[in-house]
């Protein structure tokens, strides 16, 4: 309907391979970008800092994990630890007086290095065994971040000094928002570009059938390791953004298994291998508990019943678990696939039979 394909005739390969070949998609993405860029002018400060900033950061992290899981088909249960490594590395460097730009890259490199060492397990094992190997990474990294030398102890918090990025102080809410937006925008653009280049195709080949990839000249060792390297690098950079732009004081318990599982849920609920997915998944996982909690409270006061406070606290978690189970059962490719189905329906509307 809106997504008209009729009349669009690409005459050059670069036009056909552009990120959004359909005009409607381009208009839609520009509208969303304009909305996001103007958010500080129409969204309340509380919501901007409390909702938009974490949504952008978590989307960036989920994009990084999705490159590994959806792009290269390697499961990772310790992505929270990867983010933690990036956060601690960059915060320590910033406290030493290193500029944030360099500290972010250093955080990314440190995550990439340690992430790839554990990712090397992927060269030997697949599936649930790789899940165990990456889970081991989570616990080993947790152990080290609890030491005095790195975090100051399991209960200690590390303050982040005021920082600036490219000469702009990140003290204010608006600057922080634009900083997070920029980083996530770049990551998303990178993911879109990976999908249309030989690098992304090689990863997908390793994901689908590694023996067929081998005989086409794709070294599965090399590309599995590269997937871990790039994905962990992104995790490390997002970790440093998370630390300086959102948390502003970090402690080891922020990067435990819970974060890893949450990111895993974002990727699965959002849609494996999709670029839109992590944004939708992050939004759902972050905001569904809040919305549910409020709805429950509103319902309770409307009906005049009293819901015990502990039940109110646990209901969102219950719903969260149920949601993941339902997604795995009914739409394993997540929210992005639901959007894709809807889009495809509109593409051929009103001719249902042409649906693919």
């Amino acid at each position, binding site marked *: 309907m809106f997504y008209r394909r009729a009349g669009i005739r690409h005459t050059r390969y670069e036009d056909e391979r552009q990120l959004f070949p359909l005009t409607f998609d381009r208009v839609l993405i520009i509208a969303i970008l304009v909305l996001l860029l103007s958010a500080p002018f129409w969204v309340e400060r509380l919501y901007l800092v409390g909702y938009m900033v974490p949504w952008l950061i978590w989307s960036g992290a989920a994009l990084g994990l999705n490159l590994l899981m959806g792009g290269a088909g390697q499961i990772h249960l310790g992505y929270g630890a990867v983010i933690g490594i990036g956060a601690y590395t960059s915060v320590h460097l910033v406290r030493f007086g290193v500029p944030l730009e360099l500290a972010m890259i250093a955080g990314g490199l440190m995550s990439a290095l340690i992430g790839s060492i554990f990712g090397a397990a992927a060269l030997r094992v697949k599936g649930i065994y790789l899940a165990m190997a990456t889970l081991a990474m989570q616990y080993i990294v947790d152990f080290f971040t609890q030491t005095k030398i790195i975090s100051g102890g399991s209960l200690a918090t590390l303050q982040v000094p005021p920082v600036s990025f490219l000469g702009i102080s990140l003290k204010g809410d608006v600057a922080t928002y634009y900083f997070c937006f920029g980083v996530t925008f770049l990551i998303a653009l*990178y993911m879109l570009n990976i999908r249309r280049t030989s*690098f992304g195709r090689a990863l997908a080949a390793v994901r689908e059938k590694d023996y067929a990839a081998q005989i*086409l000249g794709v070294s599965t060792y090399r590309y599995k390791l590269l997937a871990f390297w790039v994905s962990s690098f992104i995790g490390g950079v997002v970790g440093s953004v998370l630390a300086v732009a959102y948390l502003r004081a970090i402690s080891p318990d922020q990067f435990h298994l819970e974060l890893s599982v949450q990111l895993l849920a974002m990727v699965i609920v959002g849609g494996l291998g999709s670029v839109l997915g992590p944004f939708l998944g992050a939004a759902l996982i972050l905001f569904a508990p809040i919305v549910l909690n409020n709805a429950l409270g509103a319902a309770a006061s409307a009906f005049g019943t009293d819901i015990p406070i502990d039940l109110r606290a646990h209901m969102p978690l219950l719903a969260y678990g149920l949601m993941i189970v339902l997604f795995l059962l009914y739409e394993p490719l997540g929210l992005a696939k639901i959007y894709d189905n809807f889009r495809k329906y509109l593409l051929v509307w009103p001719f249902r039979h042409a649906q693919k």
Partner: protein
Amino acid sequence: MSTSPTMMPTPQKPIVLTCHDIERSFGGLKALKGVSLNVHEGEIFGLVGPNGSGKTTLVNVVTGFYPPNQGTITLFGENITHIEPHQIARRGIARTFQNLALFKGMSVLDNILIGRHIHMHPSALGSFFYWWGAQKEELANRRIVEEIIEFMQLQDIRDEPVEAVPLGLQKRVELARALVAEPRFLILDEPMAGMNQEEKEYIARFILDAREERGVTILIIEHHMDVVTAICDRIVVLSYGEIIAEGEPRQAISQPQVIKAYIGERAAQRQMKGAAI
């Protein structure tokens, strides 16, 4: 080993692939027992034999998936016996698989583009700086891919998800993926399995065209004897991991030991009697 007089029509052509005394076993099962063969340039070389005779094992040995327990493989004069499959691909071999090995979730076009992998320079940074990095190479390789798409007549399914096209076309997509790598030696593992007569004829035509227009030497595993006798220059018949006949296709498959391997001793005797009368 039989030595028929009309065995090689072109003995002066250089040798592409030599397998010398290949042995490979899986546990106690000896899948290949000292197989030796030569494939000459420009040939369509058939590999036939009953099920479980070791044809696919031999191909897997040549392409590096199962390193041989004994023997040497020489490709274009270079010993490739213990080389990884992804390195063998860079030496000019491409192959297709018996059970399709296409990459699901990608379009037909992307599946064929992967075939260009060895001619491209994939890098994480090149993808990040797409417009200044990977784009030029992508478009240049796209042109070559489009040539093959036209050659294989896949224009109208280019943008379809690969799992949505029918089996006959999927086989063709896989052949296209092998051809875009511009191999000098192509191995086809049962390219016509499960196809109807028309689709078989199409594929046979593509195989002959690939040799004529692209100068590819082809090793083909095939069960359809009509196809084998029609397009192969020479064949080797395997049975229980041993070569039992070789030479010109019609002669090789009519030899008694071949008939015996296919339909059993008594049936073979009956047939020989029938032929005598």
